């Protein structure tokens, strides 16, 4: 871990990690234009948000629901889309017995309105053309949502940065953005960059897959990610326990803590 000296408050100890939000967060009214199954337990929500200022790849927003008696519930969701548009795409996985996600997955219909606050988060984002260091994305389950936003922006921008995604997922029916990820990893952009895609199946693999089924291990992590010697910038997102384990193993494998950015979606560690 970093044990650097206490730095001057004016310069701060973390300037390399700072990035000012480019777009100010505000409240917005969204109209649902499309609800479609994304995985066995998740939906994709396509929202039209006329006042949306656009968002960086990796940003999130808050969704606020209001009951007839005024009771409100708010939860954070990553934005799967990126850039300047006013169409915002979310992918929501149902947490059984949850308060908000089952409503979004089962009850929301095209034409419904939702209150949103965002865009939020200026640290867990990737911006094209900023850094030539390779990028390693590591996702567990629905944690792939902000990482997919980064990978698709990387593809759309034909950015030459090397990009690799290691995605831990239960079964082939649970893969978010399966078609999009397949085409990002298949199609070379005009300057030759593609997404390196590695899937780890935790419950059941496709019939064609030679890989063993089981939780992501330290060995698989080391074998299927960009080595620490190449100094990749690493983004890790998923359930809290997943992120804790991966971030610990990455540091033991020689990755600098300052090169690892994490987003924890919840669940007890």
């Amino acid at each position: 871990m970093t044990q650097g000296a206490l730095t001057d408050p004016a310069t701060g100890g973390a300037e390399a990690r700072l990035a000012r939000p480019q777009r100010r967060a505000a409240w917005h009214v969204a109209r649902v234009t499309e609800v479609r199954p994304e995985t066995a337990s998740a939906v994709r929500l396509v929202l039209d948000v006329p006042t949306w200022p656009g968002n960086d790849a990796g940003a999130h927003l808050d969704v606020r629901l209001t009951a007839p008696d005024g009771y409100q519930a708010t939860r954070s969701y990553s934005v799967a889309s990126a850039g300047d548009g006013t169409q915002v795409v979310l992918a929501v996985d149902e947490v059984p017995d949850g308060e908000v996600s089952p409503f979004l997955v089962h009850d929301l219909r095209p034409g419904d309105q939702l209150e949103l606050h965002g865009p939020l988060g200026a640290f867990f984002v990737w911006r094209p053309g900023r850094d030539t260091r390779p990028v390693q994305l590591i996702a567990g389950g629905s944690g792939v949502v902000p990482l997919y936003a980064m990978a698709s922006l990387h593809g759309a921008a034909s950015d030459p940065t090397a990009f690799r995604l290691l995605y831990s997922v239960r079964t082939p029916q649970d893969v978010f953005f399966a078609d999009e990820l397949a085409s990002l990893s298949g199609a070379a952009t005009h300057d030759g960059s593609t997404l390196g895609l590695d899937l780890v199946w935790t419950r059941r693999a496709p019939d064609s897959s030679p890989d063993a089924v089981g939780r992501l291990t330290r060995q698989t992590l080391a074998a299927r990610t960009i080595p620490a010697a190449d100094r990749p910038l690493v983004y890790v997102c998923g359930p809290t326990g997943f992120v804790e384990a991966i971030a610990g193993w990455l540091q033991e494998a020689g990755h600098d803590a300052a090169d690892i950015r994490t987003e924890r979606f919840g669940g007890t560690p």
Partner: protein
Amino acid sequence: MSFITRGFSGHRREPDPQLPPGQTLVHDWPVLSAGPTPRVDTATWELVIRDETGADHRWDWDGLLALGVEDVTVDIHCVTHWSKLGMEWRGVSVDKLFEDVESEHEFVMAHSYGGDTTNVPLEDLLDGKAWIAVEADGEPLTPEHGGPARLLVPHLYFWKSAKWVRGLVMMPDDEPGFWEQNGYHLHGDPWREERYW
């Protein structure tokens, strides 16, 4: 501008006056941090207060505990919309640390092992409002939750309760720390919903 969300009724029917606006009561303890969890050994741990002369006031682990650890029961409120009520903590009052610190400056930058920073006005840390916490729920603080020691400022959103705290640096003016430069509010009062700027 709020409007009723068609079809939504919600699980929790009783509005709870102890919960600030927009917060949901949880019984587990979620984790919010921007990077990997630093592991800090109490054998090498130290806490520093730096005043405007550049002088450092230092405590090692035993020195901290020797100031006197007290029991506190407080509510905590995270900006990501969860709250825990009546949580039992143990820690050293920040008042004790400041007993021998002479400073004209009214703002503090809290620095963490791992490099995070967050700014807090000195008045939000004194008069029994803040602690250097070493235990929660009857157990030593785990690394995920900021152990071995974190700042505990329960009347502000919980990112102000700097995990893995290692230094408090006096500042003449209020300057944004790491979290604040990344969009979180300069002050962070949950009752006024000072979440983002």
